[in-house]
């Protein structure tokens, strides 16, 4: 049985990835019985419980676990749980993360440090601890949720962009170390995606961004999830960051 791990999978893009995986499993009925989903959340217990109930109703073998990337003991406890319960991981989708936005010059040092600690250090800590479990699978995928901000920078998101750039760099470093062990390691960089945080905004705040993309509209979480799904199949795509940004400035 395959084990696929999605961090931060109870809301936003993470939830879309879980929904997409479930939809794919249902299209290929044997896959439902052959794959289990391990989904983490940080604090949204109600959303986690709702997802667990939903997946149970669909007949999906799912394991919803609390994990906080900012707390290395929590990360270690999660990895121990996966080790003891499943003994391997076929895919790790590193989606969890946070942001502190605002003027960089006015930003508190603590806000800068917490982003690096959580988004970058936490993601690296989890992945490094997961490596033996990914190796145990024989052939595995690691997918990092980066951001367009990490590819071409973004005003008002300096530390966030820094951590996402770092994640892209880490995907390259990890591929250097494990690419020859049938570990497929890539990153996805979403641009302007219609998550609940964005759709609540006044359109005047983001119209200029949409006008800079050749498609001219927002992407959906499902657009990102479809790319993630395609990267779960082993192939010749390695150490690459795929931009899902509607053709921003291209």
């Amino acid at each position: 049985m395959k084990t696929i791990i999605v961090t931060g999978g109870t809301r936003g893009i993470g939830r879309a990835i879980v929904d997409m995986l479930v939809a794919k499993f249902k299209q290929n009925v044997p896959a439902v019985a052959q794959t289990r989903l391990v989904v983490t959340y940080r604090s949204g217990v109600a959303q986690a419980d709702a997802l667990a109930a939903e997946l149970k109703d669909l007949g999906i073998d799912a394991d919803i676990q609390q994990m906080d990337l900012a707390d290395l003991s929590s990360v270690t406890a999660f990895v121990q749980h996966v080790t003891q319960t499943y003994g391997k991981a076929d895919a790790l989708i590193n989606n969890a993360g946070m942001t502190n936005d605002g003027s960089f010059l006015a930003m508190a040092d603590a806000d800068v440090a917490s982003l690096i600690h959580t988004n970058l250090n936490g993601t690296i800590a989890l992945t490094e601890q997961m490596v033996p479990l990914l190796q145990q699978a024989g052939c595995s995928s690691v997918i990092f949720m980066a951001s367009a901000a990490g590819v071409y920078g973004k005003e008002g998101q300096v530390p966030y962009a820094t951590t996402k750039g770092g994640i892209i760099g880490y995907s390259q470093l990890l591929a250097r170390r494990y690419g020859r062990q049938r570990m497929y390691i890539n990153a996805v960089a979403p641009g302007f995606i219609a998550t609940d945080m964005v759709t609540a905004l006044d359109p005047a705040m983001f119209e200029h961004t949409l006008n800079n993309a050749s498609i001219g509209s927002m992407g959906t979480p499902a657009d990102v999830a479809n790319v993630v799904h395609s990267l779960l199949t082993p192939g010749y795509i390695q150490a690459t960051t795929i931009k899902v940004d509607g053709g921003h400035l291209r």
Partner: protein
Amino acid sequence: MSDLFINSNGIIPQSLLERLQAAGRECHVLELPEHTDGAAIVRQHFEQLSNEGRYYHNIYLDLTGGFNELAEFTADAVTAMQRLELRLTEVLKALKYGSQHLARADGGRIWVLCYDHSVNYSVASPSNPITNNAVIAAVQSIAKEVARFDVSVNVFLIHPPKESVTNDSWKQAKQSLKVYGMKYKPQPVQHIAELLQMYAGLKNLTTTGGIIPVGSGIAAGNI
């Protein structure tokens, strides 16, 4: 107006420093020893200068020395991770304090010096893809925020100079260096410093948020 080097132990900043001083430029050096609160040293330095009404024009932040992520993560990921977190936090704070300092003046330039991590595929040289990609994203983002203060921020992504790698290594890598790009030509550090000096000396700098590859053939910053 004078220039500041934040860390200068590498052969590239050393060579640049010597060239600038020989050209009559006043240069100061701020070394940030590891295991100290380097960001606090930078902040205090800028605060002191601001109180005296003195400001730099060029700030060089050297990241070419002291770290090799690929080697260190392979040897001991936990220790490497801790070093990386401290380093990146320090770099971001230094960029913030440096930008604030220049914004209080009439503007200025920040230059970050990094080795191109992709060269490590061919010859033994520091490979820091995490730091490089993080710093590139940071510089691109900061540049957008501080352009209104006439502060420009750029990254030099530099192939290691001829002097930092043995001649035998270049010869052994002859075949791999032909792949896709033109054959890599090792450049003396003096030539690299000359290019950096040229950029810094431009009266009207029209580049900010730029990733400037320094080397022949493919540089990671161009991929």
